[in-house]
């Protein structure tokens, strides 16, 4: 787990340094958005393959979707509740955020 964490943080940090120092220039910089989109779509395509190849997931896709919907309601509901609990401590430019 520690190795995974260090690996992810390391890559994130290296990317951060590249972005902060402006080390990526020219055509690559101009096309960063496109490169990112292509990488993302390729990754999601591969993810689709791993799902499609697995018969058990395909046969349970509707129950997985239902579970996902229920979890979404709870994650969003509790995050709204969490912000509600801290809102009185968050003061902006000497005035409370109006509700």
């Amino acid at each position, binding site marked *: 787990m520690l190795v995974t964490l260090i690996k992810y943080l390391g890559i994130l940090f*290296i990317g951060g340094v590249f972005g902060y120092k402006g080390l990526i220039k020219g055509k690559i910089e101009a096309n960063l958005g496109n490169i990112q989109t292509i990488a993302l779509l390729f990754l999601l395509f591969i993810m*689709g393959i791993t799902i*499609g190849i697995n018969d058990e997931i395909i046969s349970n896709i509707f129950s*997985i979707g239902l579970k996902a919907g229920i979890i979404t309601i*709870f994650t969003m509901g509790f995050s*709204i509740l*969490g*912000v509600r609990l801290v809102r009185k401590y968050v003061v902006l430019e000497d005035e409370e955020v109006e509700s």
Partner: protein
Amino acid sequence: MSLSILLAVLSGVGMGYFFLPITILPSLGVIIDIGLMVLLFFVGIDIGKQKGIFGVIKKVGFRALLVPLAVTIGSILGSILVGPMLKMKINEAGVIGAGLGWYSLSSTMLLAEGYVELSALAFLANVFREISALIIIPLVAKYFGELEAIAPAGATAMDTALPVISKATGPQVSVIAFITGVLCTIIVPIILPIILNL
């Protein structure tokens, strides 16, 4: 973009279901690992480009950091609480909430760890979160409060959901929303492996 994402996933599902043998899975694992690194590298570049973020945090006040903290804890707690009702292990339910709406990263990280079904669940739950956030943000701002309107967006508060938050609230809340999105984006790759291994 949403259509491209849907097409990418569905064509992958079709390819896997109809044409590819299951023996290809180990090779896909290597590709996913490399793809994940590329994705994180580009996210790092995006974060690194936000040079003024610390100045903004200082100006708004460090107490604004309570918002991303509350969003993160609330999301994880919500999924952990509902997990047992869905016959899920607490850590596996927790990682779904820990995705904070960032479907591409949470699902591929779980896939890289060998959790195929959990990855599909993370993908769907976080896609649902992103889509429904865009719908409910104006309603939350109107009926619950402007600051609370940041919560449904999670990590997407720095990009996809920011224009919606900005329209439904005001400039001050928009600044906090952006900070929340950036910090949630940094938090996801840190907390996801930790919760998964609990």
